[in-house]
């Protein structure tokens, strides 16, 4: 087996094992925990596609999750659309939002892109809060369909499929190279015949559509959504922390980050809930220390991949400017 094929093989085995789990684990709480961790894996790698690979920090990531959740909820509740059709529609909504918002915002650099997307997300949250059709602050309740195995499989298939697609596109197909070229040197990439606008939009879609689909699953799974829970900053914040902690610019990094942070959080919450405030402190220390000792994320440091560093340099568009100033002043 060649090296290039080893990783997908391992991933395939992992997915098969995960798929087989429900047959001999009947604990519904455990399934729920696994479903949620798979959800976060999906959200973290989705964010990394744009941040780590392309160098654009999308602080509005959660808005796509929320858009998918709301559209799916509408269709199920008001149009009686079955979930398996409503959820893809949620992804479509995220795609439309990406197209509409991406064209103007992807022209922005660094921190400006981050804030613009953040402002967009907050605007969307406000919109959900003031409109009547979204239920405003009351949110929306969906007819409950409480089957842990069903949602486990849906989430698993969705995230595994997303991972496979991203793996292929980013690590195997020319797309990945183009995207990384943009991250390293956007201006230079153009001279190579790469159209940054098109590629960036494709990466943006690749990043946001899975988030929208996952949001759609979330809505039907939890049966209740409101602007605070699906359009707030929490989704973005957690995905960012998981991806950065795990290692940007790789697909495995965010997976590891998501698993570790999620399980840490869950164990703390389940068994140490008297000390919730300690969780914040410990997480904060973990994050701060990881910067000192693991600047390329856990996975990045373990494997020596430094793509994370360049990703953020680009994402915050600072070094380039500083460098050019230096050059100008000789």
């Amino acid at each position, binding site marked *: 087996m060649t090296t290039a094929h080893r990783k997908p093989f391992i991933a395939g085995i992992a997915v098969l094992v995960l798929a087989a789990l429900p047959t001999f684990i009947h604990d519904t709480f455990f399934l729920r925990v696994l479903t949620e961790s798979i959800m976060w894996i999906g959200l973290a790698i989705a964010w990394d596609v744009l941040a780590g690979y392309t160098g654009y920090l999308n602080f509005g990531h959660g808005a796509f999750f929320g858009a998918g959740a709301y559209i799916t909820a509408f269709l199920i509740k008001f149009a009686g659309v079955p979930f398996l059709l409503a959820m893809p529609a949620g992804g479509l909504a995220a795609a439309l939002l990406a197209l509409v918002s991406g064209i*103007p*915002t992807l*022209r*922005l*650099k660094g*921190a*400006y892109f981050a*804030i*613009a997307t*953040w*402002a*967009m997300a*907050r*605007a969307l949250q*406000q*919109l959900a*809060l*003031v409109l009547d059709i979204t239920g405003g602050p009351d949110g929306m309740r969906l007819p409950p369909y409480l089957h842990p195995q069903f949602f486990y499989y849906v989430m698993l298939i969705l995230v595994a499929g997303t991972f496979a697609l991203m793996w292929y596109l980013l690590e195997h197909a020319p797309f990945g190279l183009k995207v990384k070229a943009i991250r390293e040197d956007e201006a230079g990439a153009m001279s190579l015949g790469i159209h940054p606008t098109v590629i960036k939009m494709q990466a943006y879609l690749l990043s946001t559509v899975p988030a929208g689909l996952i949001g759609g699953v979330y809505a039907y799974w939890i049966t209740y959504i409101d602007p605070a829970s699906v359009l707030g*900053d929490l989704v973005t914040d957690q995905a960012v*922390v998981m991806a*950065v902690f795990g290692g940007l610019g790789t697909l495995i990094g965010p997976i590891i980050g998501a698993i570790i942070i999620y399980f840490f959080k869950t164990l703390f919450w389940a068994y140490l809930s008297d000390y919730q*405030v*300690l*969780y*914040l*402190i*410990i*997480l*904060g*220390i*973990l*994050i*701060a*220390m*990881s*910067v*000192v000792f693991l*600047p*390329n994320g856990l996975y990045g440091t373990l494997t020596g991949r430094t793509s994370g*560093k360049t990703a*953020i*340099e680009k*994402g*915050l568009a*600072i*070094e380039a*400017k*500083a460098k050019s*100033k*230096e050059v100008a*002043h000789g």
Partner: protein
Amino acid sequence: MELLPQAIVDGILIGGIYITIAIGFSLAYGVMHIIDFAVGEWIMLGAFTGYYLNLWSHIDPMLLLPVVFIVFGVVGYLIQPLIHRVISGKKGNPVLMGLVFTFGLALVFRGSGLTVFGFYSHSIPAALARNSFFIESGNFFLTIPHIRFTGLFYAILITVILQYILKSTDFGRAVRALAQHRESAGLMGIDARRISSYVYGIYVGISAMTGVLIGCIFSITAQMGGEYTVMAFFVVVLAGMGYLAGVPWAAFLLGLVQSFFMIYFNPSYTLLAVFVILFTILLISPRGLFGKGV
């Protein structure tokens, strides 16, 4: 239309508060290229310090401002080398390192705040929060709360002082040199570490003072930090990152939008308007209002 003057005044006063939140943050970013995610928590810590000092000493919080500035200035000065060590070095990139590290710091502060201060809200009683200037003339009247006026005055004072320091003192020149040419500044005999420490100390001191002011105008809780970090971030980006002179304009703009929306339109849409306007301005003028952002 008799409310127009009041709407304008209210907007400017709100803008004043935004300035106090954002100005230190803009300075820190401009000089050290640190996006300090803990700015809201510094504000929170300053607010609680002011609260407890006032509780124990019964001294008016406005008089405690210099005390808070010095205490937190020192704290900032001492912490900076730690941050410096974190953000410099071969591995990683300064801005990212700073951002993630301070995010972690923010969580630690927030958790510690919750542990020490609990979940309850507090307010800092201030003599100036008890009344307002009232101007009346026929059909038109204007109410200007003393404490908010003080806030505006404080905001402008800080901005002017900072600008003066940066433009006309040796220290300021050193700071600007450092901001523009980190490596070559050292060659000119500028002690980058020392200067950075001072700047960070000033930033933390200002943010803490702002916390006290906020405690007088509004109320404080251990979890208040998050929203203030967001506000600081938005104002500074709108102003143009690192462009100190842009901060008042961005702040006033946002304040006026909020005020006008609340008075003349459906108040429910206030924040929606703010974010849409912010988003639109960024699209039109990608490096801040004046295009002077870094």
